[in-house]
């Protein structure tokens, strides 16, 4: 049954239909793969019994011919999505004992479609980090570590999601992306991930980090699988006031069209940053060539405010986080440091309950929102955000999609990046699309000189995931990426 774990969702669906194996056999194979990879530390909470129970329900629907679109498909859930009755920690000590009594809309959509939950995978604490190292429960290890015999970071924040798919220990995983948290780990772990347009997936029941940026999306091996997962995860939700009241197109139909005639692909010159390694530049150029071969027009474009995107993000995201994380006060749920005075209870609970990076961002956020600095920092960043959006609007008058590298480097060693600002630089190519609410996808496209995965990013117009997926499936088809499993 070991060959099961190297298959895609579409292949498993086919096999289940032909009775090559049962939903239970599929689930068992992925449970075994998770158990044999314990040292990679995928799970904060592994829900084996629940998975077996859900697999039996799936199989009974398959047997009676009433199967749903994801019946028999075992997936992992980022530990940022509230799951009713299952521990949901955001990889933080402060939520270390939190058991939600409600289900997030996105995960509910997946269970309604028949998907099977393997467990809750690790991430950076409250999704704040690009390496998984801010998790209270220890970082997930990148399955590609074995290639160079060093412990590599899976990226972050959805590092557990990307790692578990890469290792062939889940067919798909949910991720969330605020500034690159789906795309960067997907690139580091050699898998595919899409952050859809802001508003496409409901944020209800996802532990909030920065509400004007947070978006859910899938991480899978292939573009087709991401499209299928996104079909299920998307949709209008009255419980999220920013959820887009739009129909979900059939994203799977957008994939697999290998004629890109009349499609215009923008190459932003500002993404050619100084110090970028030649292997990234070469991969990017190879990407242009692949799309050109399929008939696309390659056009150089300019996004002049690109270099201000990261500083803008590091005002807006911490500001929103400082407000969102005010709810963790040791009173209603989670960890409490008991004290005789209420103010001491708050201050000590939050000092013990949050890790250093989360505290740093809450302090930055509080500072930029405080009297005297609000206009100079927060308002200023919101204005620059507008200029970044206008840059994209201008470019999207001339092109259909934008092609960039996903990250400025391949995965780095655990513990090798200690300085916060150099850690923030990991998201230099992913943050601009986040600030503009655009759909963006990372596709594994090649290997670095030492054999580690590299990704290309496709950015699309708002609510035009279809062109993003179309281009992504062309890159996938030409890259013939050597998946780990």
């Amino acid at each position, binding site marked *: 049954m070991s060959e099961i774990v190297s298959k895609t969702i579409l292949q498993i669906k086919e096999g289940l239909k032909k009775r090559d194996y049962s939903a239970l056999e599929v689930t068992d194979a992925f449970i075994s793969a998770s158990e044999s990879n314990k040292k990679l530390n995928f799970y904060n909470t592994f829900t084996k019994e629940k998975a077996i129970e859900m697999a039996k329900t799936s199989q009974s629907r398959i047997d009676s011919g009433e199967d749903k679109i994801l019946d028999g498909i075992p997936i992992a859930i980022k530990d940022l999505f509230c799951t009713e009755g299952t521990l949901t920690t955001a990889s933080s000590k402060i939520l270390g004992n939190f058991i939600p009594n409600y289900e997030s809309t996105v995960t509910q959509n997946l269970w309604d479609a028949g998907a099977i939950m393997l467990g809750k995978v690790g991430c950076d604490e409250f999704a704040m980090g690009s390496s998984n190292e801010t998790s209270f429960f220890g970082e997930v290890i990148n399955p590609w570590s074995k290639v160079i015999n060093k412990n590599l970071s899976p990226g972050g924040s959805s590092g557990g999601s990307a790692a578990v798919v890469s290792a062939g220990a889940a067919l798909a995983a949910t991720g969330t992306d605020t500034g690159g948290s789906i795309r960067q780990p997907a690139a580091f772990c050699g898998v595919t991930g899409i952050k859809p347009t802001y508003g496409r997936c409901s944020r209800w029941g996802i532990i909030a980090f920065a509400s004007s940026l947070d978006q859910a999306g899938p991480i899978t091996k292939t573009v087709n699988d991401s499209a299928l997962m996104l079909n299920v995860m998307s949709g209008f939700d009255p419980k999220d006031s920013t959820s887009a009241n739009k129909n979900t197109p059939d994203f799977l139909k957008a994939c697999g069209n290998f004629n890109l005639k009349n499609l215009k692909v923008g190459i932003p010159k500002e993404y050619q940053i100084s110090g970028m390694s030649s292997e990234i530049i070469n991969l990017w150029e190879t990407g242009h060539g692949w799309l050109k071969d399929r008939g696309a027009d390659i056009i150089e474009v300019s996004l002049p405010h690109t270099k201000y995107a990261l500083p803008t993000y*590091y*005002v807006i995201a911490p500001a929103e986080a400082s407000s969102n994380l005010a709810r963790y006060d040791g009173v209603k*749920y989670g960890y409490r440091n008991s004290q005789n005075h209420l103010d001491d209870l708050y201050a000590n609970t939050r000092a013990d309950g949050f890790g250093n990076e989360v505290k*740093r961002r809450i302090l930055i956020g509080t*500072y930029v929102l405080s009297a005297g600095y609000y206009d100079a920092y927060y308002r200023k960043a919101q204005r620059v*955000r507008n200029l970044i959006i206008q840059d994209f609007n201008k470019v999207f008058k001339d092109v259909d999609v934008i092609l960039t590298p996903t990250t400025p480097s391949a995965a780095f060693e655990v513990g090798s990046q200690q300085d916060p600002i150099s850690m923030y630089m990991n998201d230099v190519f992913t943050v601009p699309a986040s600030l503009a609410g655009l759909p963006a996808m990372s596709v594994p496209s090649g290997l670095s000189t030492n054999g580690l995965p590299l990704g290309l990013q496709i950015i699309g117009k708002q609510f035009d995931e279809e062109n993003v997926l179309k281009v992504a499936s062309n890159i996938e088809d030409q890259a013939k990426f050597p998946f780990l499993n």
Partner: protein
Amino acid sequence: MPIDKDTVSKVSNLARIKIDNNQLEKISKELEAVMGWIDSLSEVETSGIEPVANVTGQKLPLREDKVTDGGYSDKILNNAPEKEGGFFVVPKVIE
């Protein structure tokens, strides 16, 4: 923009995060480095540019003002660190 220990103290109080005195110096240096990097935003000409929070332009929908949820305080209190008689318990606030 220099961030001194007093500023860190003030901000940590606003954020209700206790910082030990011996950490103030270190944290002020860290915040100063990040804010110094953020200060590059001041080079951008933004006069006449509107601040943006809503990127898709969708209007906030309104719903009918009626109760749609609730009636399960027991379930909600299940996660409370301390509860009594259907209430969250905190240290005495009024003497």
